[in-house]
């Protein structure tokens, strides 16, 4: 056994370690299980699920940028029903801790998805992706609307006993205001951050490289921004934070914990090294031993400012 206590608690949810694999970067676990032992990872967050299946955006969906990438997958997913039928059994089989990410186009759909999924025993928590267009209110993102984020938190909490994490959009002026709303409406944690809005054009055709025109920027390029957002939340709101954005190495992960994260998610890095979750875990453990940290949770918000 490790000399370091790697377990952490996000609100009521206890995890064996703080390493989570981020939504949209591990599908439903099947493929990445070829490369990494999912039972050893703190948890896996599913690709955003919606009530009905979605085909996603037409190609081209991704493009590389300096130290990052843009994606506009378009929330392609199998839908709640198929997820329960075919995906959950596999995740159970590989003994993975499951956090279910939900995306929707109305508050009602968020609630409906949560209600259906909460009966699935193997789901340990929900992560609500609010970076989705609010179809009823003219297509503006829920994630930019304090009231909508508050309502989604409150309404989903009503239909489940499981922890609710709200995954915040970074494309706002003050992210801590959103964290405060989540906190006051009873949310158990915030995940920060989702991708930054970005674009890139082909100079010869003058067309966007991504069919959807804009995409979400992820990868190391956004890490300084993500760290600043996590720190801002940490200094302004007592809610637990799951840090996300550009983590490639264990050093990056520790940086997130120092600025306030209780746990962290690995996204784009999975594409480059599908075993990075466990590599990072190993690095963190060695760091703790080397610096005499016996409980990894002592790192959270250990910043010296």
């Amino acid at each position, binding site marked *: 056994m490790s000399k370091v206590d790697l377990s952490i608690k996000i609100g009521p949810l206890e995890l064996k370690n703080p390493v989570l694999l981020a939504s949209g970067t591990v599908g439903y676990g099947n493929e990445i299980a070829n*490369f990494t032992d999912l039972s050893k990872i703190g948890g896996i967050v599913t690709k955003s699920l919606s009530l009905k299946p979605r085909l996603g955006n037409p*190609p*081209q969906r991704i493009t590389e940028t300096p130290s990052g*990438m843009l994606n506009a997958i378009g929330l392609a997913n199998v839908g709640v029903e198929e997820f329960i039928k075919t995906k959950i059994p596999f995740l159970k089989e590989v003994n993975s801790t499951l956090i279910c990410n939900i995306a929707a186009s109305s508050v009602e759909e968020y609630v409906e998805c949560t209600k259906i999924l909460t009966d699935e025993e193997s789901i340990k928590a929900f992560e609500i992706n609010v970076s989705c267009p609010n179809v009823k209110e003219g297509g503006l993102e829920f994630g930019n609307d304090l009231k909508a984020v508050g309502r989604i938190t409150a309404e989903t909490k009503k239909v489940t006993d499981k922890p609710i994490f709200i995954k915040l959009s970074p494309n706002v002026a003050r992210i801590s205001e959103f964290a405060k709303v989540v906190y006051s409406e009873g949310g158990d944690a915030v995940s920060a951050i989702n991708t930054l809005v970005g674009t890139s054009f082909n100079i010869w055709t003058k067309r966007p490289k991504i069919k959807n025109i804009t995409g979400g920027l992820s990868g190391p390029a956004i890490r300084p921004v993500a760290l600043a957002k996590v720190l801002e939340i940490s200094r302004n709101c007592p809610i637990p934070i799951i840090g996300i954005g550009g983590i490639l190495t264990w050093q990056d992960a520790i940086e997130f914990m120092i600025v306030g994260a209780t746990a962290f998610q690995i996204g784009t890095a999975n*594409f480059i090294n599908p*075993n990075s979750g466990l590599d990072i875990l190993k690095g963190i453990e060695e760091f703790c031993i080397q610096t005499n940290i016996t409980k990894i949770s002592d790192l959270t918000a250990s910043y010296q400012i």
Partner: protein
Amino acid sequence: MLIEKSKFISNTSITKNTYLIKVFSPSIAKTAKPGQFCNIKVSENSFPLLRRPFSICDVEGDYLYFMFDVHGEGTRLLRDKNEGEELDIIGPLGIGFDLIGDYDTAIFIAGGLGSAPFPFLSKNIPAMIEIHSFIGGRSKENVIEYKMKNVSAATDDGSYGFQGNVVELFINKLTAYNTKKIRVFACGPNPMLKALQNVCNEKNINCQLSVETVMACGFGICQGCPIEKYNGDGYFLVCKDGPVFNSLAVKI
């Protein structure tokens, strides 16, 4: 499908800008099938960030070969590798060519770097099946004949072989195969594949197309590599469901 730290053995240039590299990669070599590809980490640091996909060009015992031309920063870095360096490779990936079935003649159709998967494919075509290769390029120096058999060439500028594109050349020669049971295996730029698809679907020729798209992961977790299904009902993932598709399966 695994990550293998592979030793870089050698790099030979086979045309002006086309390179053939050899790496020691026994585990991938063991299970690789023709038409599959590998996703290669071209740098030791995080630039460029993403891996680069390359067809498995050939397999010899414990060794893999890849063929590429220098296109951008990633392929430049690959070209500049030194003997003995370690290359981090994920593979073998995807679904390769379907070799099983009733045919007596295999027609290879390659455009430019599309020649890459054929050396390995050649080896795996049953001995009694005849192979005919149609290879196209802009100009003579773009026609890559490396390890290809019974070659007919086409160049846009007429500097070598037939003047015109390789699909036209194939169409011209089609009658010669009237008495044969042919199966077409193709790799090359999308417009070429599309033209070929039209001919083959119309004439009911079994045609295997190896397509390219941008990729991030290469094994099905990012959903970044969709190709539309022929019936319009959603997408396949090129990395997982392809890169080789039957010409009746996809819209190019």
